[in-house]
């Protein structure tokens, strides 16, 4: 009996998680050559849900692989880069999606966090997909200005749920990531 309940709970849990991020591609910017320092590499490896980090020399970026089924926090990746003395210039998140319906200016839960797509035709994401985070401090200041102008909603500027997000059922003050695909 216990077993059945457990399997049932696991099933419900799997159903709830409509997507799981598996890896990321990160570009760092700073005064010096980001790949020439081992600091970012080291800082990223220390993040609890990170399995491994590879330097992608050709694209001057870091490939970050996540531990299986781990709860991924996008903000913690950024914090690690900043603690190493650099900033995030670009962050692409790749994951497995299970019928995640996205639409411009709608707030949806992907995995454990809320996302707001600034530029996306209405579509259902299935299988492996990559999204780009365009929140403040995840892109260059210039890029942020450009991307944030795509939406008039207040949450784009703050990265947190504002009045605009309540119609999609996002609790006030919850972290909302802004993305493009």
């Amino acid at each position, binding site marked *: 009996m216990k077993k059945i309940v457990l399997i049932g709970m696991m099933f419900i849990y799997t159903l709830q998680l409509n997507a799981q991020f598996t890896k990321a591609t990160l570009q760092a910017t700073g005064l010096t050559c980001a*790949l*020439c*320092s*081992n*600091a970012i*590499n080291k800082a990223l490896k220390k993040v609890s849900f990170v399995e491994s980090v590879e*330097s992608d*020399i050709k694209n*001057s970026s870091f490939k970050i692989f996540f531990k299986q089924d781990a709860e991924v926090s996008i903000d913690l990746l950024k914090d690690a880069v900043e603690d190493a003395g650099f900033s995030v210039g670009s962050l692409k998140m790749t994951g497995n999606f299970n019928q995640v319906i996205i639409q411009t200016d709608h707030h949806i839960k992907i995995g454990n966090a809320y996302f707001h797509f600034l530029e996306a035709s209405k579509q259902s994401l299935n299988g492996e997909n990559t999204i780009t985070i365009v929140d403040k401090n995840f892109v260059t200041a210039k890029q942020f200005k450009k991307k944030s102008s795509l939406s008039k909603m207040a949450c784009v500027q703050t990265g947190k749920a504002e009045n605009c997000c309540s119609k999609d059922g996002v609790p006030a003050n919850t972290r909302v990531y802004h993305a493009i695909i």
Partner: protein
Amino acid sequence: MVNRTVIIIIVFFLSIPFSSKAQPGPGKQTDEIALPAVNGDTIRLSSLKGKVVLLDFWASWCGPCRNSNKQLTKLYSKFKDKGFEILGVSLDSEINDWKKAIKKDKINWLQVIDNGGWEARTAIAWRINAIPTSYLIDRNGKLVGMDLEGKDLEKALKDILSK
């Protein structure tokens, strides 16, 4: 309980040789480096005793390192006949990238490779956390400077070469 004490004592003694391997600093005798050159021959740092050596850690993909190569070219031609040698240690993973960079930058000083990136044994032994990183080593194999560049490097070189 006795077991635990024994283990602690063993761990303590095992840790001694590691803890003494602190970051290479001035006045310290250098650790041996024995790595392959482009032609496959092994070059040893110890074989350069008697010369003033600039040990230069770099990689082909490191922009600042490539700029530094240009500076080193001038410095090398100026001092190589006065007992100065450069030993470049590349951390490139791709040996071909390294070879191409040597050709492109017209490097004519000694070059070896430990192709494991930050995890390369030499990089770990020398505590390399960023490249370029360089060490200036005197005729007796002792460290006399770290990350000297441009005029500072030239001045330090003149000083120890005249000794």
